[in-house]
């Protein structure tokens, strides 16, 4: 029991705990106070004024920026507050392109939701933003200033959490907008496509690019054979939209749905993640022999690779040459079906917006055609399943296709921060027992903390590891490395806080629930019979077959930005 005293919310006495602000306490007490500019992981902005409450003296406080005090007495739903909230909403809507039915965020829009909640049946002001004004220059996100309500969530996400700073407020007063430096198209800015801005945007001002129509067309083409791979993190985030629990594994149902929708061959990216683990541990072991000052950075996360290219070009030589699991799989699939009579189309279902950019990179093209033709995010696949009319929960779970039907627990945990590291450690550890696996799980690589450190002994050597998620954290770790305060041998970096399970392509999830998705993946790992990537029999088959003499060419990449051909 805390001794912070009590206060009264709408006549109900509640105990004050360690809540940072009134808003948290009010929500805990069971009232869903409306907000547009509040996201628990970001700093307090206090711009939207929707969370105003009336205090005992009749004064108004913004609940998000007011700490709870003992003896306070507030009301959250008075006639006056309702009037103010309606007024604010009307003013916001007057500056908002209201083409809801054709908006990419319809149904998930907080502004739409509040307009319904507060019964906005008319807007008294002239609409100043009639038409959409989309900036389609990025492959990952679409930005539309006519749908922006200037809540600043994206700005704070981009600078506070990701430390990218691609966007900020510019100009002032009625001319204010959120834009890039010099108003250049977002695709030409230092935006890295992580899409985290879209996860916190309350409206349709920043949405993930949609490629569903193009994929539907391919599915309808009789001359095309459409193969698809599904990333680990997708299976624990998709089901919630169809009534499953957050974090519940719905892989079997997804496979079943995709097959009914017309995908010809369905694979699990975890299989390719096993290849990534083996290639990456080999690279690490080679580097350990050579004694480098700087660590080996992982390369699975395309937003991190982008960020490194743009901010730390000098460190590109330290980024693993391993292709991401998505690209490894794409190379393997391309090789497998290169003699097929049908036109091959490969789709990747990812939790990630930056994968859309990765797929279009020149390094991952064969004869000028991308190895991955389309990247669909989890959100887009949800739309496709809904569009197909399938009743998801009525489907029977099905298994992925051969010849790539086997994966290990290591491949699956790639989807959560620390997963890549854990998988690599399982591979290089000399302890092959089950208790060895358990030890690795508890050395500090698990959990949603932004920077985790671990130390393991490999052979004679102590290997220092950092596991980082969120690019702001990555910047801090790199600063520490550069200044010499820290020394690591291996650094895993995932751009999205929490790793791929919290990717911007996934349905939105409040920060405090992210752990459920991670738990989901760890329980999938528990249920797989093979835990170490090297023990996947399929991997051996591949190395002795399709990948023979080609493994370097198909599984590694030399980013043009890295400057030099790297060697393994």
């Amino acid at each position, binding site marked *: 029991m805390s001794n912070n005293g009590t206060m009264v919310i709408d006549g109900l006495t509640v105990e004050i705990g360690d809540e940072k602000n009134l808003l948290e306490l009010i929500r805990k007490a069971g009232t869903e106070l409306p907000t547009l500019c509040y996201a628990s992981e970001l700093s307090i902005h206090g711009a939207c004024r929707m969370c105003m409450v009336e205090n005992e003296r009749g004064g108004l406080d913004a609940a998000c920026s007011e700490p709870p005090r003992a003896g306070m007495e507030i009301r959250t739903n008075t006639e006056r507050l309702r009037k103010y909230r309606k007024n604010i909403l009307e003013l916001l809507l007057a500056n908002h392109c209201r083409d809801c039915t054709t908006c990419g965020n319809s149904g998930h829009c907080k502004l739409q939701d509040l307009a319904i909640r507060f019964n906005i049946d008319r807007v008294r002001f002239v609409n100043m933003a009639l038409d959409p004004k989309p900036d389609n220059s990025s492959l990952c996100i679409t930005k539309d200033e006519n749908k922006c309500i200037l809540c600043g969530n994206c700005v704070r996400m981009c600078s506070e959490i990701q430390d990218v700073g*691609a966007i900020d407020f*510019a100009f*002032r007063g009625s001319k204010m907008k959120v834009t890039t430096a010099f108003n250049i198209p977002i695709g030409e800015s*230092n935006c890295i496509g992580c899409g985290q801005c879209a996860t916190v945007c309350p409206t349709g001002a920043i949405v993930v690019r949609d490629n569903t129509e193009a994929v539907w067309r391919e599915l309808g083409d009789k001359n095309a054979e459409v193969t698809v791979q599904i990333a680990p993190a997708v299976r624990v985030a998709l089901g919630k939209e169809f009534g499953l629990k957050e974090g519940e594994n719905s892989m079997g149902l997804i496979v079943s749905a995709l097959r009914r929708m017309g995908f010809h061959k369905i694979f699990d990216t975890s299989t390719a993640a096993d290849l990534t683990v083996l290639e990456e541990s080999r690279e690490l072991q080679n580097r350990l022999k050579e004694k480098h000052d700087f660590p080996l950075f992982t390369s699975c996360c395309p937003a991190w690779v982008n960020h490194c290219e743009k901010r730390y070009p000098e460190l590109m030589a330290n980024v693993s040459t391993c292709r991401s699991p998505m690209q490894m799989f794409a190379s393997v699939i391309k090789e497998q079906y290169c003699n097929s009579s049908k036109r091959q189309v490969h789709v990747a279902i990812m939790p990630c917006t930056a994968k859309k950019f990765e797929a279009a990179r020149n390094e991952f093209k064969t004869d000028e055609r991308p190895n991955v033709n389309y990247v669909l995010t989890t959100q887009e696949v949800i739309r496709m399943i809904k569009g197909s009319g399938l009743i998801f929960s009525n489907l029977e779970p099905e298994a992925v296709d051969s010849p790539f039907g086997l994966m290990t627990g290591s491949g699956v945990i790639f989807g959560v921060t620390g997963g890549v590291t854990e998988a690599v450690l399982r591979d290089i550890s000399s302890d092959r027992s089950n208790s060895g696996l358990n030890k690795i799980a508890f050395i500090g690589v698990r959990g949603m903390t932004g920077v985790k450190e671990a130390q393991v002994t490999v052979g004679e050597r102590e290997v220092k590891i950092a596991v980082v998620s969120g690019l702001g954290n990555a910047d801090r770790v790199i600063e520490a490395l550069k200044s010499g305060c820290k020394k690591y041998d291996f650094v895993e970096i995932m751009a999205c806080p929490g790793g791929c399970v919290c990717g911007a392509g996934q349905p939105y999830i409040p920060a405090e629930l992210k752990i459920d998705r991670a738990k989901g993946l760890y329980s999938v790992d528990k249920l797989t019979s093979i835990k170490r990537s090297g023990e996947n029999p399929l991997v051996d088959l591949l190395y002795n077959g399709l990948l023979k003499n080609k493994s370097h060419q198909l599984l590694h990449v030399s980013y043009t930005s890295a400057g030099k051909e790297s060697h393994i």
Partner: protein
Amino acid sequence: MDTYIDYQKVDGIIEAHHGQPSAIIAILQEIQEQYRYIPRQVFPHLSRRIGLSEASLYSVTTFYENFSLEQKGKIVFKVCDGTACHVRKSLPILERLRKELSLSEEKITTDDLEFTVETVACLGACGLSPVLTINGKVYPAMTPDKASELLKSLKEEVRSC
């Protein structure tokens, strides 16, 4: 036209403020003093040295009317349009200057980069209204004709040198 940037000088300005992000306004002001505007080319350099994103620098420079991202003329007219000057007919003065230099509210600098005409909210010299400044020097009790005269003599000076 790209302005030549002496990055040593820019670094000097940054150093004088210890590269503090909180000193960004002062740093931008001093850069503007050097070049009469804030050249776009300094943004990446500033961003790296101070640790503020280019988007944030753009945010600050577009927020304050005082900062200019457009190159300005050698001679800058600032016509006061504060309340006192406004009621004592500052607008006709502004219009006259703009007309004679073929400028407008959007286009404030002549193509030869000699003259810039802009307004200012209040110079604090209401007793002398309507006033204008030319490169900081105050000219009181202006009329459109007096402004024309000033412009004419300045044009001659420019031609002779």
